[in-house]
């Protein structure tokens, strides 16, 4: 793998940027690997990267039915924060945030992590109390989060309408300054390049069609559209399609798949300095470095695998945006799409072992998985390598739905889905 630096940039500038090497190979699948990862999104690629880097397991393939990073990694609104309510969630999202802070240097790849601040708005006495409770819980866990008055919120985000005459006036805000955004594609590409450089095979256009199990019940590999690929361990990181893949091994999951929508406006000059979200009125907005306003809408009410979503769902969000930011009323929306998110009953992820020997799963990130990408891959790689849960992943077992030790983040989502 050639290292990126000011010198490689200068050298390639001299040859008109025509000789940059490919960032990762496009290998033919081998007959067998130590670990096969199903799904080359951010979480799967990060898992492969940390398996190779920290656990020295380099016989790894990442199988992807489409193209690398083409699922929810390429469809989300790229928000990063760690201000979750429950201790278990705070631990894993903060673990991820700490990795985000050094990720560009770690990967030698600019993931454009931008800690521009994530501000969550309150619109009622109840909201104030809930957000303050979050702030205190976060501080006990060593996570930055602070309370702002409406005037302070306006100073931090000048486009915000704090007038008293709107339907849901702003009564305050919680601000996590270390929260922000990153470039979603770069995260997938950076991990892919890093993993590939350590010998991991990333195999695109290779859909898993079956999971094979031996006489002892343990997995022996995957049937794919490019033939059978043997594996000592199979790690499923298939987001919205987790239920489909796990059904191939006869495992039913506590997961339902819903379309979650996002949309972007026409690009404009920098007008929006941070990330703003409001649970009560369901607004969720930031500005990309390209200048588009990036807006997150809600999920549809019914399970679906159509990467689409109802228009009234996006319209509901735009109503709230127009009220909070009246200057955006005339802006045109350029693109609108849906991604299929895997939602668990307690809105917390599932990371770990399954009832099938050798089969591991990392899923259930629901509507907010992007922010966890580095942390998720890091603890899942340790879990797969050692065959037992990483301490941070330990509470997020599949078994918690039997024992009843749920991690209820349903009310803690940035916006209610």
């Amino acid at each position: 793998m050639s290292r990126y630096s000011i010198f490689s940039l200068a050298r390639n500038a001299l040859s008109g940027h025509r000789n940059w090497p490919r960032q990762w190979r496009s290998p033919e699948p081998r007959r067998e690997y130590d670990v096969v990862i199903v799904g080359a999104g951010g979480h799967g690629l990060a898992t492969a990267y940390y398996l190779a880097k920290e656990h020295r397991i380099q016989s790894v393939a990442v199988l992807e039915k489409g193209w690398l990073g083409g699922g929810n990694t390429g469809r989300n609104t790229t928000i990063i924060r760690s201000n979750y309510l429950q201790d278990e969630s705070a631990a894993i999202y903060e673990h991820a945030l700490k990795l985000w802070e050094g990720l560009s240097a770690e990967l030698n790849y600019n993931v454009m992590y931008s800690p521009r601040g994530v501000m969550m708005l309150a619109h009622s006495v109840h909201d104030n109390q809930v957000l303050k409770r979050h702030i205190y819980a976060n501080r006990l866990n060593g996570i930055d989060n602070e309370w702002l008055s409406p005037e302070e919120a306006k100073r931090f985000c000048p486009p915000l309408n704090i007038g008293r005459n709107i339907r849901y006036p702003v009564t305050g805000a919680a601000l996590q300054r270390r929260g922000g955004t990153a470039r979603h594609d770069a995260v997938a590409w950076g991990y892919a390049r890093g993993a590939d450089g350590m010998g991991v095979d990333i195999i695109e256009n290779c859909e898993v069609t079956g999971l094979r199990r031996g006489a002892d019940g343990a997995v022996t590999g995957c049937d794919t559209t490019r033939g059978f690929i043997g594996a000592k361990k199979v790690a499923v990181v298939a987001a919205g399609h987790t239920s489909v893949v796990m059904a191939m091994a006869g495992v039913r999951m506590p997961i339902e798949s819903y379309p979650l929508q996002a949309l972007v406006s026409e690009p404009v000059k920098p007008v929006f300095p941070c990330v703003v979200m409001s649970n009560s009125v369901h607004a969720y907005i930031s500005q990309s470095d390209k200048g588009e306003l990036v807006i997150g809408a809600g999920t549809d009410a019914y399970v679906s695998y159509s990467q689409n979503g109802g228009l009234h769902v996006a319209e509901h969000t735009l109503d709230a945006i127009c009220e909070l930011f009246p200057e955006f009323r005339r802006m045109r929306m350029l693109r609108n799409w849906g991604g299929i998110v895997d939602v668990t009953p307690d809105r917390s992820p599932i990371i770990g072992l399954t009832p099938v020997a050798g089969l591991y799963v990392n899923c259930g990130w629901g509507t907010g998985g992007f922010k966890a990408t580095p942390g998720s891959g890091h603890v899942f790689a340790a879990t797969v390598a050692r065959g037992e849960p990483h301490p941070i992943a330990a509470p997020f077992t599949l078994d918690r739905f039997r024992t009843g030790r749920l991690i209820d983040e349903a009310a803690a989502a940035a916006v209610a889905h």
Partner: protein
Amino acid sequence: MLIVPCPHCGDRPEIEFRYAGPAHIERAQRPAELSDEDWASYLYLRDNPKGLHFERWRHIHGCGRFFNAARDTVSDRFVASYKAGQKRPEIPR
């Protein structure tokens, strides 16, 4: 927005309805005898199929009644709808 076929009122826009989860999940006759695995299965495990899905809807801004429907979760096309309590229809795949 979907057009949802209510078996009582006919085709109506989606915003008149509430989705109410998978259909034909039976509550245990003797819940005290259920194991933890059975409870987990009843409460949390879902088929979540990519394809034909039997589900409950309520026409809350119409007749107010619950009914069942079969829908393709890839195209979102409704294949059938039928009254609550009726048997699951045979649908050729």
